[in-house]
């Protein structure tokens, strides 16, 4: 693995060498390193590109890293990763994709991740997307996350895209059974002419299921973002969607929230706020000794933290 690839790995998965625990590292469309443990198996799919990650029931305190790096221009990498998490297992999964494109051709990675959490399973899923490179070619990432939560299963998903991705369509679909819980935290920053579209479609099918989606984004320069959410309460359930965006320069953000209560005991909330940085926030930080630019950076960094 060369210096660029190591840097990408650090950016997306916070690892410099091989990670501890189970892992599968994919580089330019091919698996290059893998490790399994007594409780976690990783199997290459036979019918399409991708892997199955199988976690035995009651596995505790283990982690799985499945980063993808692309350094080859003109590559369109499509991958299907399926996660089977056994009953009452508790694991951390770190995914993410880093693209370094120094060519004029488009580099694209479309990761389709499907999660099957058995009863009582609990996972934390961290996904970071990052792009860099001096080439004029686009860096495109279109992740799709499909979440199936069985009874009392819970998932915490952190999705971050801070830098360098020309265009992204990020879709998340969730089907939730009785007592299951889903928390999604999304952070996106776009600059230049980048575009980012986020779709959340959640079916709260089971009694006492709950979802909380918190999206914070910053659109700078001429970038455009779109946030679409549709939370359907089909039982006695609770859903909360919160979308906050800061716009700067000619940045644009479109927020299209939808909540659908199909059961009289469904309780659904949507909050959305879009605006530039408040002048009084800048003034306050300037009275503490920051310049206007430093104050702006501090506010943005805090907002996306």
């Amino acid at each position: 693995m060369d210096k660029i690839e190591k840097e990408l790995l650090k950016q997306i998965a916070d690892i410099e060498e091989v990670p501890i625990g189970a892992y599968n590292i994919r580089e330019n469309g091919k698996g290059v390193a893998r490790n399994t443990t007594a409780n976690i198996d990783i199997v290459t799919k036979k019918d399409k590109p991708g892997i199955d990650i199988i976690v035995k029931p009651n596995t505790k305190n283990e982690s799985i890293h499945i980063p993808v790096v692309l350094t080859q221009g003109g590559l369109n990498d499509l991958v299907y990763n399926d996660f089977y998490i056994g009953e009452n297992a508790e694991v951390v999964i770190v995914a993410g994709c880093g693209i370094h494109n120094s060519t004029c051709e488009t580099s694209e990675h479309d990761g389709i991740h499907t999660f099957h959490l058995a009863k009582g399973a609990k996972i934390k899923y961290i996904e970071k997307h990052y792009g860099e490179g001096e080439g004029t070619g686009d860096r495109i990432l279109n992740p799709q996350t499909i979440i199936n939560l069985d009874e009392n299963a819970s998932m915490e998903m952190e999705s971050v895209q801070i830098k360098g991705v020309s265009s992204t369509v990020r879709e998340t679909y969730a089907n939730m059974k009785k007592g299951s819980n889903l928390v999604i935290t999304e952070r996106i920053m776009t600059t230049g002419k980048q575009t980012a579209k986020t779709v959340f479609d959640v079916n709260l099918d089971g009694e006492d299921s709950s979802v909380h989606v918190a999206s914070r984004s910053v659109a700078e320069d001429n970038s455009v973002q779109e946030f679409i959410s549709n939370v359907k309460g089909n039982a006695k359930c609770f859903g909360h969607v919160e979308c906050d965006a800061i716009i700067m320069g000619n940045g644009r953000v479109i927020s299209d929230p939808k909540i659908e209560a199909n059961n009289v005991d469904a309780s659904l909330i949507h909050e959305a706020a879009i605006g530039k940085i408040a002048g009084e926030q800048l003034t306050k930080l300037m009275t503490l000794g920051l310049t206007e630019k430093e104050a702006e950076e501090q506010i943005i960094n805090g907002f996306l933290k």
Partner: protein
Amino acid sequence: MLELKDVCFSRDNKQILKNVNLKIDNNKMVVITGPNGSGKSTLAKIIMGIEKPDSGKIIFNGKDITNLSITDRAKTGIGFAFQQPVRFKGLTVKDLIEISAGNNIKVCDACDILADVGLCAQEYLNREVNAGLSGGELKRIEIAMLAAKKSALTIFDEPEAGIDLWSFNNLISVFEKMHEDIKGSIVIISHQERILNIADEIVLIANGRVEKQGKKEEILPQIFGKIKPCHKLNNGEACNKSEED
């Protein structure tokens, strides 16, 4: 330390400050008081650089700072606690205290400062300064930020607003401790008699002018003959009307 010379300020054809001349010496606790709309908050903003005077000069430690930016004034040793503290989605109490201290503060010292303003560090240090905090909590955090900044001149704009009565004594001791620790000057804009009582000097502003300035012992009896202190009226409800009104 600070001198305002013939400072004038108008907005919307209304003259808010009229040839204000004011001197604040080193290491003094000064309380500025006066009726609502008399120009006290504007004066504070002009000292901090948030508003620019139409004419006049501001001298700080012998240097003309009239045209300095807010940032430069902050760096040169002026601090300002807002009357209505600002909320920040994403920034924590710890972040703001660190920024205030110029990123040069130990966590234990930040905790001590929070304890001084009556907040439990364990509970508040990592909390976002967002809409989830009450007005009183925000006010205490604002005061904690200024305690961490340790400015040569710190201005508090109505620090008592939003602070509940049982915390009021603590607030007084926070100012006294700050004054002792920092060895700088503290300027408090207030209507509260108990705050007026801790002043070395009192400045009375009325109709955009400095009407009186002097030692507490001289000014306080004159003021009480002119302005009814709040706590004596309506069970502490705000009342800033002078008897002339």
